[in-house]
């Protein structure tokens, strides 16, 4: 663009029209080297200083947080935890996937029918869906560059859960006496000479299914002893 060099003069309408006539209308692209120097200074990488007193303080407050119900709740609220199996997940999307894939019977039925892809990608913004969890895993590894051992992967849990579920189904259909499993007394009734503390301990409830299995195993062991 040839602008006249005289500095103080204002361009007349005709001069302006002439200059504009020489230009071609179009887009300014980011590739064009219009300004050689960046406007903002170069980004300076910065680390963060951790205050050790804070860590000590956090450690010190750790004990009361387990004792104090209010504090325990606020600590828990930083996570997204499943109300059924108490699994803690870092995002709402991952928790949503977890609940749908592990605790939703309608979803399980839909997967069995297999008419449409149902397993959503771990990345919330990705709209892809898959027929199999393994397909999703491949997609995440190849396309989103996830690590092979992605820690929030539901696949392994799905496998173990489905095996458990098959057993549960078998019990419902074939083995009538085992349907009484749900009526078994709570494990805390057994103390073996060590008095148990009677508190509302949520950590015990986490593995309630497991506890019931333990009761069954224990009953069998007692029968063997007899």
């Amino acid at each position: 663009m040839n602008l006249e060099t005289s500095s103080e003069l204002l361009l007349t309408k005709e001069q302006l029209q002439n200059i504009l006539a020489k230009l071609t209308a179009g887009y300014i692209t980011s590739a064009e080297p219009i300004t050689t120097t960046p406007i903002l200074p170069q980004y300076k990488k910065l680390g963060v200083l951790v205050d050790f007193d804070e860590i000590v303080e956090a450690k010190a407050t750790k004990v009361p947080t387990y004792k104090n119900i209010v504090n325990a709740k606020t600590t828990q609220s930083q996570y997204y935890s499943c109300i059924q199996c108490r699994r803690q997940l870092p995002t709402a999307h991952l928790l949503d996937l977890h609940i749908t894939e592990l605790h939703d019977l309608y979803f399980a039925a839909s997967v069995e029918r297999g008419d449409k892809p149902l397993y959503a990608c771990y990345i919330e913004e990705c709209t892809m869906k898959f027929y199999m969890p393994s397909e999703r895993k491949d997609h995440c590894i190849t396309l989103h560059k996830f690590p092979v051992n992605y820690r929030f992967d539901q696949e392994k849990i799905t496998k173990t859960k489905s095996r458990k579920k098959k057993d549960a189904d078998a019990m419902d259909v074939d083995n009538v006496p085992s349907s009484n499993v749900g009526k078994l007394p709570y494990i805390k009734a057994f103390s073996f000479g060590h008095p148990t503390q009677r508190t509302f301990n949520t950590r015990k409830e986490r593995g309630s299914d497991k506890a019931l299995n333990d009761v069954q195993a224990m009953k069998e062991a007692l029968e063997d002893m007899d």
Partner: protein
Amino acid sequence: MELTATTSEPPGQVNDTALRLRTREYARQQRKDLRMDTTDALRFGLGQIKDKISELENLGIKDVQGMASRIKRRKHATEEDMYRLSHAFLQGNANINAFAEVQGATQVIVKELTGTHMQRQIEAAECLCNFSLGEAHVCEKITALAGSYLVTLLNSQEPRLKRSCLWTLGNILATCRKSANMLLQMQLATKLWKIYTLPSDDLRGYQEDAGICLYLIATHAASSISVDDRRHIAENLHKKQPAEPAAEYYMYIVFQLEIVSKERDLCAQHFQHLYDFFMANLNIGFNTSADKLRTVYGVRVLANMFAARPSVGQLELQLEQLVNVLNQLFALRDTSLTMDLMQLLKNLMDAQLLDNELVLEHLRVYA
């Protein structure tokens, strides 16, 4: 009598205790927030910490190697381990390289980052933030091992964790293009745009950090951004308002990512939003680099917008306001800005959005 009556009433006492506990909890939370704000200010560049804190424990390569071997052996890092590592990383690049060379040590930090213990997660994120002060190969390692988690944890509810992840990502984006490309494949841009466009009543102020990250993407890896990410940003252009934090990066990001281009059809509302944003965000003083950034790239975006030839009905342009702004910008007599302004004028004339003769009559362009 009244006192005994109140003390003998168990339900009231229970409520009172619960209330006290809640008050204490609020006070604790407030203290924590204030402390977090204080720690925000404590950010250091590589080696800078030695000049600032004289009584600092000097940690060398051997210390780092020892700590790395220990955490690797135990497959677990305590808060103290991560604290010492964080300090060691701040002290120099040699420490960072020494840690990076120990196979399996970074994985332990990643394990802590993805665990269920919140305090340890925070320490791990801060440790990785200082680790990311290293060179490109270190950043590549962090991206490969922890990139997906850092992106995922941007949705975390814990402010300090979220902020540390943003800082770490910023350091990585500024260091290594390969890592930036990998992070973009994890749909980082979309996630950052969501944070950047959070409403201004969000007092945590993540917008500034997200804006910086997007600025770094736009500078170093604009060509690697996916079509889906571009579409998402284009569809959500209107969510950023000019009065919100980090608004100075907006036009730069829009321009560098070619959101307004012939390949993309923006709707009338988006064009109007861009125009209104430019007018509201403009600070013609050109005093600071932020003012310059918003002006220069705002003019370019506007020029491209007129090149897209929106129809007259789509845009509500006020001739007087536009001419007034253009005159003020021409009066700055900045060579490159004047060239952009001439291109804007040419595109505006061709789009036939206003009375061209009237515009030319009122313009004051210096030779």
